């Protein structure tokens, strides 16, 4: 039995050593972020069908599982078992790389999102800049997919998407610059802490126009309705991913929804105080001390999730409400309306900081 013991001991030692390696720890943390994210994506598609169904007085999916709860699982299984068709004349390597380039950035950006005061995967100085850079890379998935498919519809979709994303990235970047100015930091954790106090201290109020522009640009960046000309089912079939099937199509799908969640989380973090509790500042301090209830009322990741969910609901609401923008009108809105407004507000924020305006900049 001695040898068994020592073997057990060495295995235990090894696993302790193994799990104390930073690389392994980071891997585990990544899994802890990505798995819930993927589940959220799956159930976001379900929520979308249910909510839009409700808005259009329909039922949505009801058949798979109780009240249709297993529908996303069934969809995923279906896509996994379908054949991946590569069109003739397509550039095979790029055709396969494209969806990976699409989902990679959508997941990588999560590294710097703080979930509460302590937990963030990579607490880097230039966090917000990193998010901006990484999300701007996502467009390559769309462009490469459109080009590598050797299909006219796909190329048209890619072209539209490229022009649109470049246009709205500028407005979005400027909106984020005002946040950086207001918080005085590029670190996302610091940005959240700069908003603490009460819901009136959150940046949505002093940066209200930027808040609106950020979210609308976010909708445009993710190619969602009413800015979905890159897919434009009624005009160019499915746009850049018209030639994709099976699992590669599913990856595009995942990337789109992961991006939606990312934009929503960022909106919550940058303008609505992230994990800060909305009750802070106007409920008596003692309430936060109560066991159980205090945990619920105090700061925490649940507030971040609720705020994110609100923005995700907006996404779906927009889709159910608005007709698709025409291409030239999208360009007009981006270049001639949003960018001038952001530049003006940039100066306004500068003035507010200079004069120590209100309780945000004192």
């Amino acid at each position, binding site marked *: 039995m001695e040898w068994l013991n020592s073997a057990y001991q060495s295995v235990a030692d090894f696993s302790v050593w193994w799990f104390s390696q930073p690389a392994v720890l980071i891997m585990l943390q990544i899994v802890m972020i990505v798995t819930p994210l993927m589940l959220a994506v799956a159930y976001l598609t379900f929520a979308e069908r249910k909510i839009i169904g409700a808005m259009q007085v329909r039922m949505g999916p009801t058949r798979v599982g109780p009240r249709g709860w297993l529908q996303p699982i069934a969809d995923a299984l279906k896509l996994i078992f379908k054949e991946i068709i590569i069109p003739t004349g397509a550039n095979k390597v*790029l055709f396969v790389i494209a969806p990976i380039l699409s989902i990679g950035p959508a997941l990588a950006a999560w590294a710097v999102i703080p979930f509460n005061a302590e937990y963030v995967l990579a607490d*880097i*100085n*230039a966090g917000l*800049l*990193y998010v*901006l*850079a*990484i999300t*701007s*890379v996502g*467009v*390559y998935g769309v*462009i*490469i997919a459109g*080009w590598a498919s050797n299909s006219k519809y796909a*190329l048209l979709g*890619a*072209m539209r998407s*490229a*022009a649109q*994303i*470049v246009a709205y*990235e500028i407005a979005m*970047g400027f909106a984020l610059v005002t946040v950086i100015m207001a918080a005085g930091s*590029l670190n996302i954790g610091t940005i959240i802490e700069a908003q603490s106090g009460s819901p009136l201290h959150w940046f949505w109020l002093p940066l209200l126009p930027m808040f609106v522009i950020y979210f609308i640009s976010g909708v445009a960046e993710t190619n969602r309705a009413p800015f979905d000309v890159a897919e434009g089912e009624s005009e160019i079939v499915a746009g850049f991913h018209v030639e994709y099937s099976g699992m590669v199509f599913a990856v595009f799908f995942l990337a789109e929804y992961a991006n939606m969640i990312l934009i929503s989380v960022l909106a919550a973090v940058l303008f609505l105080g992230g994990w800060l509790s909305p009750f802070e500042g106007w409920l008596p301090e003692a309430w936060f001390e109560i066991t159980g209830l205090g945990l619920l009322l105090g700061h925490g990741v649940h507030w971040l999730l609720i705020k994110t969910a609100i923005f995700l609901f907006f996404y779906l609401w927009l889709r159910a409400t608005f007709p698709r923008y025409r291409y030239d*009108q999208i360009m*007009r809105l981006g270049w001639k309306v949003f960018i001038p407004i952001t530049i003006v507000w940039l100066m306004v924020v500068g003035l507010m900081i200079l004069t120590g305006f209100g309780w945000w900049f004192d």
Partner: protein
Amino acid sequence: MIEKLIFYIFAIIMVFGATMVITVRNPVRAALFLVLTFFASAAIWMLLEAEFLAITLVLVYVGAVMVLFLFVVMMLDINTALLKEGFIRYLPVGIGVAILLVVMLVGVVGPENFSLDEMAAPERHGADYSNTRELGSVLYTVYVYPFEIAAVILLVAIIAAITLTLRKRPTTKYQNPDSQVSVKRDDRVRMVKMKSEEKK
């Protein structure tokens, strides 16, 4: 050790990417390799603790400039055969110049001038060092004049681009969203009261 490894990995990727940019036949693939090169150089900048420059390189060049570049390249149908015309003819001269340049470069840009003994490595900074803050503090003080000139250059680029592309044609049709939005029901619908047909 691990830093050296990272450096060599990205340096190899960078050299490979740069070589592919000038050797692949397809312009779209060349542009994509250029993107790869930018990424690798951003990573190397990161090793130099210049995270602001690294991220800005990705944000500006990869995220915007190269996207527009690809946009244009995909639209054009570049005839590569035509571009190769005269390639053989100029090859001897080209090779001659290239060899001359390489010999000169090797003679000058070698370890005898740029080794670590000649140029000391920059000192490492702590975790609280912010490259962004450091850059900002010299950019707006010591280098404020060049910075302003750079801004003027960008302004000229905008003016030039608009001058060269904006054409006002009398036949161009466009909508005015303001007046579209401010349309009232009365502008579009006219209620006409008619007597219904009378039975005889």
